[in-house]
């Protein structure tokens, strides 16, 4: 033990002062009594032996002297020094994935992990630092390197497990980037070992230490769930639920699907062998509204995956106006899409355009020059707008597709390899416009993306290319409809996995949105853009986003087989350090301050003094 402030021992000089004050103040009153033998028996019974009697009689003085000693010791700031073998800075990676909520006889796995983290912090050598990273869906740096144990302790205690699948791989990579290969730094991972893909990492094992928390092995969970409308029937829905037994014993699992107000829609009972997955596909008939909940009625160690949710999307209608030349492929495609209604017009005057924009979500100009377009959603085929950013500069024959932006929402899953085009307009997008498909000498597909204006220009005639005959055509059109009119299928409901962000599209400009979380708590958000990205869907359940009278359901599920598999016996990566890896280490010293305990002792002594004072007087 080391005293960091030995000068405080000067306060021991208060002891004679206390003795003096006691001698001056504490005078006993003299009383003459007939006999003492009764009082002596009282004393014997009250305080036992004579030594104890004296102790009790002098207890206030003894407590005062003890108080002075304890306070002096606290001011001297003693620290308990212990030697530890490791003397390294630590990057602590704490698993906060959903599986850490698994219940064990000692509490949850996460509570165990927190306790281990506090022990690691306790053994952090003096002068060494620690950083804390949580491994949720996205790794998050909670505290950067700090030597302040109180701060680190608070940080550890404030971390909470999420309902989201974990991404330990990225968290470890982030932690390793902190250490930069230094031999005086170490990454400590505390988790349950169910980390998924870690084997491909070329880890420098000398820097890694893994502390596994365990407990809880019984789990049956819903691993998949989907609900969709049957197009042929007006009030019929198809539901898919996959239930898997992750336990080592066979289980009998009741499955129930309920609508709002717990109205039962489907009830099944499954017999699942260890590791077996059973898929239920069923049709639900009748009007459905809001959300649907699937639940397995079993008490297991990981209840988070015992429920899954789905939202019933309200059918919407999308009006499309096709202006110009008739196009068999385009019309056929548009009319085949559910909820799509197509109008055809040979020409559109500039005066009528605002009215048409109100009635149609998308206007397609096929080979005809459009009027000036300032707002709205437009697809221009084989023509260019009256806009200096996308001007036609002639034509080019048999252009080849050089490259296209595969990550753009318009071109997701669109394969344009070997696309044959007989002739195309020569378009060179200026600033404010963007080329998505580059061909030889021209931009084959260009966009102008502004808050009020979504304009897509396809620089060639569909009938003079083989695009309508390729799979890419319906995919491209579907992407286009989603991009220019995202409300079509997103307005009423959304599905995300816990921890993921969700993009909400609003019909009208809004400034505020109210979000009700699965626990029923409501919170106001300021909406600064349309679409608006909601990033706080951290808990499994149904979020309701309200803007005015509009209501949007956001269904958040776990539905992750890796997280549901809470028995990761064969998945724990081996982080055992290789002997000789890293620089040779010297023992470190851990200093544990004791002043707080002494202060606590002083308070107790003070309470004892108060008690004796109250008791005597």
């Amino acid at each position, binding site marked *: 033990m080391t005293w960091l402030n030995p000068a405080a021992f000067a306060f021991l000089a208060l002891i004679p002062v206390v003795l003096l004050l006691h001698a001056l103040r504490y005078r006993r009153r003299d009383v003459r009594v*007939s006999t003492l033998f009764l009082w002596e028996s009282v004393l014997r019974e*009250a305080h036992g032996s004579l030594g104890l009697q004296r102790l009790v009689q002098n207890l206030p003085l003894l407590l005062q002297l003890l108080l002075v000693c304890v306070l002096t010791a606290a001011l001297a700031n003693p620290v308990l020094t212990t030697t530890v073998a490791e003397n390294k800075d630590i990057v602590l990676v704490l698993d906060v994935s959903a599986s850490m909520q698994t219940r064990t006889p000692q509490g949850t796995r996460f509570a165990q992990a927190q306790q281990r983290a506090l022990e690691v912090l306790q053994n952090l050598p003096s002068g060494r630092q620690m950083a804390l990273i949580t491994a949720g869906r996205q790794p998050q740096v909670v505290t950067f390197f700090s030597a302040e144990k109180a701060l680190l302790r608070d940080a550890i205690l404030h971390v909470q497990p999420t309902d989201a699948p974990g991404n330990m791989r990225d968290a470890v990579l982030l932690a390793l980037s902190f250490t930069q290969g230094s031999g005086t730094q170490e990454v400590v991972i505390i988790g349950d070992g169910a980390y998924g893909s870690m084997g491909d990492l070329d880890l420098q094992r000398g820097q890694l230490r893994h502390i596994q928390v365990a407990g809880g092995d019984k789990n049956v969970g819903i691993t998949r769930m989907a609900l969709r409308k049957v197009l042929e029937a007006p009030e019929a829905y198809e539901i898919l639920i996959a239930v898997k037994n992750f336990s080592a014993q066979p289980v009998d699992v009741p499955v129930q699907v309920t609508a709002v107000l717990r109205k039962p829609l489907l009830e099944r009972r499954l017999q699942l062998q260890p590791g077996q997955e059973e898929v239920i596909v069923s049709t639900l008939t009748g009007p459905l509204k809001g959300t649907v909940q699937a639940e397995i009625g079993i008490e297991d160690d990981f209840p988070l995956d015992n429920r899954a949710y789905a939202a019933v999307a309200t059918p919407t209608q999308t009006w499309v106006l096709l202006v110009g030349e008739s196009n068999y492929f385009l019309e056929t495609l548009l009319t085949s899409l559910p909820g799509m209604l197509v109008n055809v017009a040979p020409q559109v005057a500039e005066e009528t355009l605002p009215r048409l924009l109100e009635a149609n979500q998308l206007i397609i100009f096929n080979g005809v020059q459009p009027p000036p377009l300032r707002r709205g959603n437009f697809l221009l085929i084989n023509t260019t707008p009256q806009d200096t950013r996308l001007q036609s500069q002639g034509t080019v024959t048999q252009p080849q597709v050089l490259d296209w932006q595969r990550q753009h929402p318009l071109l997701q899953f669109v394969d344009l390899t070997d696309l044959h085009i007989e002739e195309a307009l020569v378009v060179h997008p200026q600033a404010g416009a963007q080329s998505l498909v580059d061909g030889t000498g021209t931009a084959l597909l260009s966009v102008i993306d502004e808050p009020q204006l979504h304009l897509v220009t396809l620089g060639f005639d569909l009938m003079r290319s083989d695009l309508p005959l390729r799979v890419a055509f319906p995919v491209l059109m579907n992407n286009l409809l989603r991009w220019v009119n995202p409300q079509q299928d997103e307005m009423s409901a959304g599905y995300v996995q816990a921890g993921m962000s969700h993009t909400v599209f609003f019909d009208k400009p809004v400034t505020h949105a109210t979000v009700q979380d699965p626990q029923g708590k409501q919170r106001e958000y300021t909406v600064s853009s349309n679409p608006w990205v909601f990033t706080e869907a951290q808990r499994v359940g149904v979020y309701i986003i309200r803007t005015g009278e509009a209501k949007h359901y956001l269904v958040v599920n776990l539905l992750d087989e890796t997280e549901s598999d809470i028995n990761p016996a064969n998945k724990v990566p081996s982080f055992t350090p290789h002997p000789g890896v890293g620089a040779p280490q010297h023992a470190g010293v851990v200093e544990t301050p004791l002043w707080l305990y002494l202060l606590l002792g002083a308070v107790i002594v003070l309470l004892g003094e108060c008690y004796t004072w109250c008791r005597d007087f």
Partner: protein
Amino acid sequence: MQSTLFDAEFMRKLETLRLLARKVFRGQGQNDRTTLRRGMGLEFSDYRRYHAGDDFRYIDWNVYSRLDRLFLKIFTAEEDLTIHLLVDASQSMQVGSPPKLDYARRVAAALGYIGLNGLDRVGAVSFADELGRPMPPQRGRQQIFALFRYFEALQCQGGTDLNRVLSNYARQSSRGGLAIVISDLLDANGYTRGLDALTYGRFDVLVIQLVDETEINPPFEGALRLHDIESTTQCRLTVNRRMLDLYRQKVVEYFTQIETFCAKRNIEYLRASTTVPFEDLILRYLRRGFYLR
């Protein structure tokens, strides 16, 4: 007849009373108390054969006429009672308001007055850790003044040693009788051997324990140094409510212990607080306990 101990009115009330003893004693002079001796009393006891020299006046002539034998009628002798007043004059008897000794000497004087007035023999002796100067048993009303003077002269001095003084008195006393012990019985060494000595002697014992209210409910609290009034010993303690409760419990236990002891030994026991008016003690409590008639 005036006294500082009590007034003439009270003395007139006392003249109507008589002290009672449970045992039957052999007296010295003739009185109206039944004794073990056969003699010239009024109460018939038995017959016996006539022997030469017997008094003819006690021959039952009716029996002679029927049996033709001489039988003598025997009567129980009626003699006086010796009353021994033993008054505790130790230092502890000066405690209280009024002091317990003042109360004790008035009780003793009253009982002595009743005894002398009833033609019994009355003796008195004070005691502390030793027996004081005794007043030998005297008979006759003329001894009342001497008795009063004796009690008026009593002073508190010395400690208490009940076992020794009562044993000594039982040994020294030549005749038995009714022994009335007036004391606070606050003796750390106990009282049992002393009372046993009186009981095993020829005494019918009446113990009157005098206690002051401050001895039952001490009027002090806090950090104290208690001094034993009869010695130099002292005790430092902090008296709080819990300690007072415990003390009261001990006092009750002690009194119960005395009562139990006296009941086992057939000793009459009366505990009186000095807050009880002295006249009430004599005229009510002692009569209620059949110590007076």
